[in-house]
């Protein structure tokens, strides 16, 4: 009990150092607990939705297929179940909402047993005549409730439908119109589930389906059914055929889960490791300071076990408080992240549930880390015999001299410099730890700053370098090129018009293949340009080959000069050989660009285009004028897309800021704690210098010099560490067709350097105050 009191008083006396240690421990535990809970809850929610709503193992899009023939696909060996729906993108009218809204109408048959990608009724009732379910994020974005009505434009007719409830299907957990969009926009795009008979009748496509999904028999690989399916579906205008892993919603969700899982077990460990090391250094110092006391306690008869338990208590206090604070804040952080996830993904079963298993693991890590740090620091006490402990320690052995090894330093350094460098070389472990801590801190801050900048750069690249049009009008089907262009020029307010042809294609290179968006564009076009983010230059499509995006090139392992095979099922063409003329560095999506006339030639189609790009300052007037044009699938105003994207990305800003602050916390905790210990160890030396006639500022310069040197030494490995962190993140994000830039701006490094330097500066100020208030008489009368 008395020893416990002693421990509590010792901790209280050095409370700032212990608080810093507890802060690092709690940040680590908070991240570990929240990320793991998020990972578990997201994984569980995904698996639950997939299992209960029978998510397909493969997917296909065709132009049209009689619904009666879908069942025949089950005759293909390996296919256990096939389901079909009719899926149509239409425009919707929402009163008071000026942007164009696209609804993806999806048919479903609530009577069909064992239906794949089943619709889950989240709220309200299943739709009756002239009713539909909409996805919850779309409903929430517009404040819709059951019974509200909205108007859709289908085949040139305005049809009013009533919302009977909200629903969700496993193939649309992430609801995005276009994989090329950076973020979901529930205000302008939603999913509507309508009873099959009703939708096909409304669309005039009774008995038709165009979207198929398949469940494979147990143990069957997708590659075994791929070709038979292609053969069976080619007659129906196969547009694409993909396994589950390439299904867009799953691809993004799976990448998100992988990234969270990766972060959960790496980033927190940095903070916990830092806390353990600080604890180790502090306990080592406590043992040195309490050497005499340890001797006396041992002489009194306290056992080694009792004493080690006593010193273990120091770490357990840090572990316990860090664990409790970390877990409580982890619960709050997990709630915040869950809200963020739910704003992106339609996962009604996603909850911020607290996992008792992870709670126990987090607490065990906190207590174990605390115990480990103190045990490592205090173990030297076990070797002390009482008589030896009551004597001052023998002076340390001098092992080599840094300045003897590097004699040229003598020409640059004063005595202060010698002292600082020798202190670094003689406290190798501690110096290495400070360097490591500064490296991590520098890398985390630079990494986060770089990514905050990167989002700005990505938006700039897309909206000011590549897609510089003001408005995009997507047609339902390809239109004749010249009439389409003429209609564009006729639009009031259109200052510039270009037309492009966009098609989903399948690219193959050797045994590798990937789905990609093929864009046919004019060589002299200026509204949509191919922009290379690394080379900061624009590339022109030319005849005789394609320009491949870096994401697609990575997936296909293709380089300039490679020859790809392209299937364009929507155009009815297969295995077209295309040489790669150039690789364009882009960050998102697998894309391939080709000169428009060249595309018409290789597809052997007349001049056509399916997207009109406009330069205009009257986008809203044009949208209003074309509101009821049934050949148009969607109209988007680029300024609004950019604004929405920025708003969505800003929601991540808080997390980046938090991570930056955590990086600063590492730097500050390490530097101030080690400086404080160093000051305590060397106060006799500093007092002597004060007696010799040095001002506190001069004495502090010795320590400052040491920390500035360590700061520079720490920042050097920090630079490749940033690169490695980015490589790691890209590895985690790679499956989601993303390739984030690996380069880091000078501004990011400067920001990290300045923030780390600020920690050194603040620590130096504090040291200077302490040096100025040293009682020289007290310090110097102590025996060495």
């Amino acid at each position, binding site marked *: 009990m008395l020893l416990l009191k002693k421990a509590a008083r010792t901790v209280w006396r050095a409370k700032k150092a212990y608080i810093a240690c507890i802060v690092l421990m709690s940040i680590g535990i908070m991240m570990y607990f929240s990320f793991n809970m998020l990972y578990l809850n997201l994984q569980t929610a995904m698996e639950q939705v997939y299992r209960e709503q029978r998510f397909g193992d493969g997917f296909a899009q065709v132009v049209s297929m009689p619904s009666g023939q879908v069942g025949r696909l089950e005759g293909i060996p390996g296919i256990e179940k096939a389901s079909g729906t009719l899926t149509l993108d239409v425009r919707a009218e929402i009163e008071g909402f000026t942007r164009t809204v696209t609804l993806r109408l999806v048919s479903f048959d609530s009577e069909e047993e064992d239906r794949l990608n089943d619709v889950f009724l989240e709220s309200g009732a299943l739709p009756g005549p002239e009713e539909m379910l909409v996805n919850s994020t779309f409903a929430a974005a517009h404040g819709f409730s059951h019974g509200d009505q909205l108007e859709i434009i289908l085949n040139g007719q305005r049809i009013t439908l009533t919302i009977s409830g909200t629903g969700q299907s496993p193939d649309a957990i992430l609801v995005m119109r276009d994989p090329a969009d950076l973020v979901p926009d529930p205000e302008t795009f939603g999913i509507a589930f309508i009873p099959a008979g009703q939708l096909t009748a409304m669309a005039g496509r009774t008995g038709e389906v165009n979207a198929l999904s398949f469940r494979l028999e147990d143990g069957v690989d997708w590659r075994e059914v791929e070709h038979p399916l292609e053969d069976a579906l080619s007659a129906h205008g196969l547009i694409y055929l993909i396994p589950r892993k390439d299904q867009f919603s799953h691809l993004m969700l799976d990448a998100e889960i992988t990234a969270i899982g990766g972060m959960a077990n790496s980033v927190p460990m940095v903070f916990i490791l830092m806390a353990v090391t600080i604890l180790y250094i502090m306990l080592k110092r406590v043992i040195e300071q309490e050497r005499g006391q340890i001797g006396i306690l041992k002489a009194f008869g306290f056992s080694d076990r009792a004493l080690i338990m006593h010193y273990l208590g120091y770490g357990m206090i840090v572990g316990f408080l860090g664990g409790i604070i970390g877990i409580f804040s982890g619960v709050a952080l997990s709630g915040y992240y869950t809200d963020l996830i739910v704003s992106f993904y339609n996962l009604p079963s996603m909850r911020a549930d607290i996992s008792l298993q992870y709670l126990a693991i987090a607490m065990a890590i906190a207590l174990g880390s605390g115990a480990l740090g103190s045990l490592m620091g205090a173990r030297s006490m076990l070797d002390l015999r009482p008589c030896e402990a009551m004597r001052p320690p023998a*002076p*340390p*052995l*001098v092992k080599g*001299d840094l300045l003897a090894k590097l004699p040229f330093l003598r020409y640059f350094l*004063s*005595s202060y410099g*010698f*002292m600082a460098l*020798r*202190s670094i070389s*003689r406290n190798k472990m501690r110096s290495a730890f400070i360097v490591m801590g500064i490296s991590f801190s520098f890398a985390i801050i630079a990494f986060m700053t770089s990514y905050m900048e990167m989002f700005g750069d990505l938006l700039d690249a897309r909206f000011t370098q590549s897609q510089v049009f003001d408005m995009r009008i997507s047609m339902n089907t390809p239109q004749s090129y010249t009439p389409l262009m003429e209609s564009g020029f006729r639009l009031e307010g259109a200052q510039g018009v270009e037309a492009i042809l966009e098609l989903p294609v399948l690219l193959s290179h050797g045994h590798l293949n990937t789905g990609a968006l093929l864009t046919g564009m004019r060589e002299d076009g200026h509204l949509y340009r191919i922009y290379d983010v690394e080379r900061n230059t624009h590339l022109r499509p030319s005849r005789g080959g394609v320009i491949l995006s870096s994401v697609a090139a990575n997936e296909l392992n293709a380089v300039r000069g490679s020859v790809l095979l392209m299937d364009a099922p929507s155009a009815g063409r297969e295995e077209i050989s295309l040489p790669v003329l150039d690789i364009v560095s882009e960050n998102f999506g697998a894309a391939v660009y080709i000169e428009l006339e060249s595309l018409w030639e290789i597809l052997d189609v007349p001049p056509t285009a399916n997207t009109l790009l406009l330069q205009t300052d009257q986008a809203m007037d044009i949208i209003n004028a074309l509101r009821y044009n049934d050949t148009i699938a969607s109209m988007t105003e680029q300024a609004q897309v950019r604004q929405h994207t920025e708003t969505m990305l800003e929601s991540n800003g808080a997390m980046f800021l938090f991570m930056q602050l955590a990086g600063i916390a590492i730097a500050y905790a390490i530097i101030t704690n080690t400086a404080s210990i160093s000051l305590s160890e060397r106060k*006799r*030396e500093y*007092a*002597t*210098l*004060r*007696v*010799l*006639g*040095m*001002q506190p500022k001069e004495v502090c310069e010795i320590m400052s010099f040491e920390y500035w040197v360590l700061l520079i030494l720490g920042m050097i490995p920090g630079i490749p560490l940033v690169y490695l962190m980015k490589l790691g993140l890209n590895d985690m994000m790679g499956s989601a067709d993303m390739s984030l830039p690996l380069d880091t701006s000078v501004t990011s490094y400067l920001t990290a350097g300045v923030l780390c330097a600020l920690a050194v500066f603040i620590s130096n100020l504090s040291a200077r105050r302490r040096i*100025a208030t040293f009682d*020289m*008489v007290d310090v*110097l*009368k102590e*025996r*060495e």
Partner: protein
Amino acid sequence: MTEKILEIKGLTKEYRMGQVIVHALRGADFSIYEGEFVVILGPSGSGKSTILNICGGIDIPTGGQVLYRGTDISSYKPKQLTQYRRTAVGFVFQFYNLIQNLTAFENISLSAELSGSPIPPAQLLEQVGLDGRGGHFPSQLSGGEQQRIAIARAIAKNPDLLLCDEPTGALDFSTGVSVLRVLRDFNTEYKKTVAVITHNAGIADMADRVLQVRDGLIESVTVNEHPLPPEEVSW
């Protein structure tokens, strides 16, 4: 009589130790003269170290005056006291207080760097008989060697006054004598004032004057007409 380098008038010092106020000095009056070798002698707790600390500007008195060449340093601000220590006094401690991360030579150079008119460190190293040991770190030197380096370091600034607090307290007899020889040489060769504080009455025999301290007061001042060379003192 030569000029007074230090004049102490009515010096008092009170410490608070917990709930108790300790009167370390109760009104000490004395002077130290230019170029003399003075020993301040007294038992433990008599206040002699407090006198040295105040004279050296590392402690401040509760009352009284400390006149250095006629200027009262007792009212100096910390920055002025630092300047005083830098230019006027050199300290030698019982436990040497060498900088562990500097070699013997560098310890002396460090002090020399602070002065506008230093004594060359190499010369001092030779004078204290350690010219072959300049590259050694303190932990590689014996106690006597460390104390000689500490004296050389204190002298390197070329101070007016050398204040030594029990300089032989941690040394054996013969090593102690060699240290006293260095102090005496500095006193005679450079004509500098040396004040040695000790409880060792044997050392008093080599002093020009002996100030006896008891209970925070100067009990007596004895002029030693025939100071002994360090080699002839004994304890």
